[in-house]
């Protein structure tokens, strides 16, 4: 075959042919594993095919095999950059299924930690995206800031990344002593880093040239693809689950939803930068308003009867009287460790795990723990189905749960926000240069665990 000429081209003319270029699955500019097959005309992309699924770990199938509390660690690993938001989304979905509500303080704590998570997510996204364009120092700064926030997260949850902090009906533990101060300090550091990065990037000629005008999408296309979150907002559509379908206590907090105008990479960068600022604002307000009180769910079923009376009823065999009852004890009879944890509430025992101090400290706590974690026991919500959306770092993160009344969910489906964005990737890339794949892919913020589950 004569490779120098296309059959139909006139003699002497340079031959024009398209070239296939395969990027990924293991490619340095792809943080995460995904394969993009591009068809190039010179440097321009004329067609692409995106192949995903390299990190499919069977989340949905696993969730059917473990009990309701057992799913929480799996949710950590969906969007592993902001696990606390996933925890919150899942727990709120189960709470909706159970029809219970959690106390005020718990809502505030969840809001605080999930906003911290959102900041770390955006920091990683912007930092990694900037690194791929050559701004390595920005990456180091942002990871430094993330490290401060992770130390904070570790202080609250005991883990840096895979936190499993939320519980159905509450959170694992109250905020630790001195959290306020540490948090303010960390946020200040973050602000400093944001200002530095802003100075390094926002008006940086190289950065702006590579980001603006690339990876463009119109608002209509974005909506049709089901894109939500910062990505949608960069096209000028003001949709934020926290504002439009408020959950927890977001309707009581003041924050703005930044929107872009052009829907290109640069706008997405600006939106993310501004969102971090807003998240810091939310955390500060929530810390200021944090009400005292219990952080685990109040019992809504079960009438309280004194413990001694309950024992008596039990002794005479009157089971009917104590089936739905909740024993209340004299405060002096509580475990010795109780006074140190004034906020721990002995609430709905059929739903949430006891505080760790109780599990290790007294027999009731241990039994309650066993009744919830033992195989075949655990939370048993009524039969039903619910969908609950929260605003994840990438957009609407929804959990759809079907229960068949047993201790493990019949079906858990998660609506992954970056799945929608990735499905629009061909649209974002076609027409751009091959070098624009890097910034576009960076601003998509693909998270493998969430995309492929």
């Amino acid at each position, binding site marked *: 075959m004569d490779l120098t000429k296309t059959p139909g081209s006139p003699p002497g003319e340079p031959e024009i042919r398209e070239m296939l270029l395969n990027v990924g699955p293991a490619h340095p500019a792809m943080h995460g594993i995904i394969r993009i097959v591009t068809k190039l005309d010179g440097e321009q992309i004329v067609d692409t095919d995106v192949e995903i699924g390299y990190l499919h770990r069977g989340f949905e199938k696993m969730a059917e095999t473990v009990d309701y509390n057992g799913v929480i660690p799996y949710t950590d690993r969906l969007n592993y950059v902001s696990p606390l938001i996933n925890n919150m989304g899942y727990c709120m979905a189960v709470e909706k299924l159970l029809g219970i509500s959690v106390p005020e303080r718990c809502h505030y704590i969840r809001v605080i930690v999930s906003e911290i998570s959102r900041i770390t997510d955006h920091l990683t996204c912007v930092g990694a995206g900037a690194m791929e364009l050559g701004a390595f120092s920005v990456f180091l700064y942002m990871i430094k800031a993330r490290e401060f926030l992770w130390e904070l997260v570790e202080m609250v949850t005991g883990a840096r990344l895979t936190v499993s902090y939320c519980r159905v009906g509450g959170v694992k533990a109250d905020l630790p002593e001195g959290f306020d101060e540490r948090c303010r300090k960390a946020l200040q550091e973050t602000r400093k880093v944001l200002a530095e990065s802003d100075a390094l990037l926002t008006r940086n000629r190289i950065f702006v040239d590579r980001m603006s005008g690339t990876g463009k999408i119109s608002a209509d296309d974005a909506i049709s693809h089901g894109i939500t979150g910062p990505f949608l907002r960069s096209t000028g559509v003001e949709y934020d689950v926290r504002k439009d379908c408020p959950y927890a206590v977001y309707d009581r907090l003041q924050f703005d939803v930044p929107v872009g105008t052009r829907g290109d990479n640069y706008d997405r960068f600006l939106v993310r930068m501004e969102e971090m600022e807003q998240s810091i604002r939310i955390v500060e307000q929530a810390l200021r308003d944090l009400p005292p009180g219990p952080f685990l769910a109040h019992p809504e079923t079960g009438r309280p009867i004194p413990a001694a009376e309950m024992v008596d009823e039990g002794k005479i065999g009157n089971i009917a009287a104590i089936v739905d009852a909740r024993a209340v004890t004299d405060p002096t009879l509580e475990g010795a460790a109780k006074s140190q944890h004034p906020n721990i509430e002995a609430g709905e025992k059929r739903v949430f795990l006891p505080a760790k101090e109780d599990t290790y400290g007294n027999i009731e706590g241990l039994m309650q723990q066993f009744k919830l974690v033992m195989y075949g*026991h655990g939370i048993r919500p009524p039969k039903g189905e619910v969908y609950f959306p929260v605003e994840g770092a990438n957009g609407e993160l929804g959990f759809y749960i079907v229960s068949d009344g047993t201790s493990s969910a019949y079906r858990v489906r998660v609506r992954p926000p970056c799945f929608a964005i990735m499905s629009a990737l061909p649209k974002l890339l076609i027409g751009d240069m091959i070098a624009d794949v890097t910034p576009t892919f960076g601003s998509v913020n693909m998270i493998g665990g969430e995309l492929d589950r």
Partner: protein
Amino acid sequence: MNAASLIQAVKDRFPAGVKASHSYRGDATVILGREFLLEAARMLKEDTLFQMNFLMDLTAVDFSTFGTKRSPAFFANSGIAVSPSPEIPDADPWPGPPGGHPSAGAAPGTPGPARFVVVYHFFSLPLKHRLRLEIPVGEVEEAEPEVDSLSSLWASADWLEREVWDMFGIRFRGHRHLKRILMYEGFVGHPLRKDYPVNKRQPLIGPVN
């Protein structure tokens, strides 16, 4: 619109198509015959009353083992049964699987209950309401049941339908290239079906461990 009026509005438009509806925990849910899907979806998108411009989620549920899962009694082999904690009571109960109880079996001569339910979650950005649409499929023991594809109406349906095909083996009529998305070519079976064992591996390389 709130859940009740939303359901009523859909019912008014499709008196024949709506099989059932409920608003369990406030989620407006309409169960529709599968032949009405495309028409109903178009109406939901275009009608000024609904304006559902987002197809937020599309998934399926395999109801074939619904209600048959036994809560494992713990010391069963020693003869001591331990009953698990009681179910938490519900004031407003859920009407049950949308396609009927597949495990219950059907009376001879009548169409059997549906095995799968394809679940659509719609959201309207201008009106801020959500609707769940459920389409029971697979009544007649079809190996690969089929529903209409919504990819002509919402671009998001494209990948989501591929995922449902991959995970459940439900075909979408009118989809451009229905191929696997999360699993690889050469994978046999559909992992989220209830009869696919959770740890049945089909490695491309290396041992089956």
